[in-house]
């Protein structure tokens, strides 16, 4: 086996994506993406539905072929290295449905056979993903969270140096999501695995990953650690508030004021960016007092990734 994460010097990226393009019929799904992932790094690709996340990671996984650009995994292109790269990579696809009437154990054992692993490893995986109770249950009987854990377990079978998960927690309730998170965090402590996961949950990216790549409409908009992103792109703070129902305010009322409020008339909520809360907040309160507009509630906070996304695209992550 030539390709092994350890065989490449630490400075080289394990995943190197350069100027990659891919389109379907009329849709340009990925439009010029450059991405380098270093060994041991946990990276989230954060973006709304249709951003091109799946297309991008499936090209990295060798499932789809880029139209232009190059993709190298541990320095190797896919072409001619399929078998070697399949052995160092673990993946879970967005929504794979396994055979209904195979048990959890049988499903994992089937995949273990592809890597020449024995039943001992199968039991380790069942243990690691907390599926002991469901060991002999048919796949069709599993809950959504259990299915996602099964998919994750299959991805972990071969001790992958590179793990790529496409929306591993989409559609799960917060508990089930946290179970997946804890499996991944345990992995981070123990192994030098490099992880790429796609998500449209800001919290997931923040909680799990060292590095966040924000993607929309086939392009990378920004990338870096959470702090870097917030510092570079979201220097300011946010003041968000709502007004009492009897106050009659329209969009227009804010137009002439000193504050750049984005006002939602239906929900009677507004928010705006400020640079310094200490100066701007008293001024805002005075402004409200002068008009006798009563506050219902108010919060001052640091900007989030969602705010960042809004300021870059005008839309929220969930739409």
């Amino acid at each position, binding site marked *: 086996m030539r390709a092994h994460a350890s065989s490449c010097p630490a400075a080289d990226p394990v995943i190197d994506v350069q100027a990659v393009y891919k389109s379907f019929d009329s849709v340009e799904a990925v439009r010029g993406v450059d991405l380098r992932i270093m060994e041991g790094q946990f990276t989230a690709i954060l973006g709304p539905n249709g951003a091109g996340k799946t297309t991008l990671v499936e090209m990295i996984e060798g499932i789809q072929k880029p139209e232009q650009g190059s993709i190298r995994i541990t320095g190797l292109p896919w072409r001619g290295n399929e*078998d070697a790269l399949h052995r160092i990579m673990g993946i879970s696809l967005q929504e*794979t449905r396994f055979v209904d*009437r195979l048990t959890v154990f049988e499903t994992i054992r089937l995949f273990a056979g592809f890597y020449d692993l024995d039943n001992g490893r199968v039991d380790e995986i069942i243990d690691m993903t907390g599926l002991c109770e469901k060991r002999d249950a048919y796949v069709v009987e599993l809950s959504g969270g259990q299915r996602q854990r099964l998919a994750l377990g299959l991805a972990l079978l071969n001790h992958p140096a590179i793990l790529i998960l496409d929306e591993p927690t989409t559609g799960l309730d917060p508990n089930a999501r946290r179970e997946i998170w804890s499996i991944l965090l345990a992995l981070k402590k123990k192994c030098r695995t490099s992880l790429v996961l796609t998500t449209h949950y800001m919290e997931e990216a923040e909680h799990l990953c060292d590095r966040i790549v924000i993607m929309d409409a086939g392009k990378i908009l920004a990338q870096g650690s959470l702090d870097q992103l917030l510092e570079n792109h979201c220097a300011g703070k946010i003041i968000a508030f709502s007004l009492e129902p009897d106050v009659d305010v329209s969009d227009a009322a804010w137009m002439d004021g000193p504050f750049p409020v984005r006002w939602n008339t239906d929900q009677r909520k507004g928010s705006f960016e400020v640079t310094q809360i200490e100066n701007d907040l008293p001024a805002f309160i005075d402004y409200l007092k002068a008009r006798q507009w009563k506050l219902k509630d108010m919060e001052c906070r640091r900007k989030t990734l969602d705010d960042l996304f809004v300021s870059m695209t005008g839309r929220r992550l969930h739409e």
Partner: protein
Amino acid sequence: MNKRIHTGQFARLFAAHFKEIIRKPEVIFWGVIFPILMSLGLGIAFTGKGDIVRTIAVIDAGIPSDPAGGPAGAIGGFLERHAEKIPAQGRHPARYRIDLDNENLGRTTFYFISTPWEEARTLLKRGNLNVIMEESAEQIQYHFDPLNTDAQLIYLKLSAMFTDNRAQIPASRNEGIRPLTLDGTRYIDFLIPGLIAMNIMMSCMWGMSYGTIEKRSRKLLRRMVATPMRKSHYLASLMAVRILMNFIEGVLLVVFAWLMFDVKIQGSIAAVMAIFIAGNIAFGGIAMFTSSRTASTEAGNGLINAIVMPMMVLSGIFFSYHNFPDWSIPLIRILPLTMLTDGIRSVFIEGAGISGIVLPAGILTAIGIIFFSVGLRIFKWH
């Protein structure tokens, strides 16, 4: 990579495919129970030694609507003299009955009912009637479809009875009837090889083809090829499981037919195996080709039906394709299902040996290999 890896991979794929199949109740039903029920139903319906019963309508006037009212006309008079009078009971109207017994042919029973023209025609169309008799000017007239050989036969018998004025077919002059009871001449002997062939086709097309299309639509196929799995192992294990299942199903059907109807294989077992394997290769290849591109189970459904249905109708599973027009026979004979059915039949009922099925088995294998290679070339794993 050592050898063990590959055998381990193949064995696990084989086990997984096998379990996947046998855990589907519908597989057991369609593969095992359905062919047996079919052979049972059709076998009893067409092989039983039951009496032949035929119904003849006599247009009004011929028989008085109230049989007690006495005879009217020549037909009525004949029936009054020679037939048993049966009063109306249940859904049957009053009717006359004549039994013709023959020690070699069994019993033929004729029922005569009285109906107006309109009703007789409706009953004839529905198949409730075989012949219509009418009397005009002292003459008996018979109405029936001249293309219906059964009706012709009835006409001959009736005409003989009414001409001789006795409820009997004239005893033959110097000739005798010797019922032919060679092995393999009954309908069930014809049917069983057809059902075996049909099952091979159905099970390859629905089991392999549909199964693969479903795995593609569930993105399982692309998940599997994102591992070091050998694609050839996937396909070979699929094929091997299918041959095993078809073998089990075929053996069960043959054993059932042997116990129930005393169906026997006249030719060599080796020849049966050879044509059976060739049939599996042919339909395995066609199934693989059919499932090579589509990821939609609806499209797959239509595609499989489009391939299976014409062969089901044309290939002579249930009745001989020699009833189709002459020009179509050469075309029908090159259909894979026809070749397979004819091949199995030649061994089962004509006693063919290996040499008798070399040609169809060779062609079927070639068909399978061609479809398989083309299918593999265009196969969409992702």
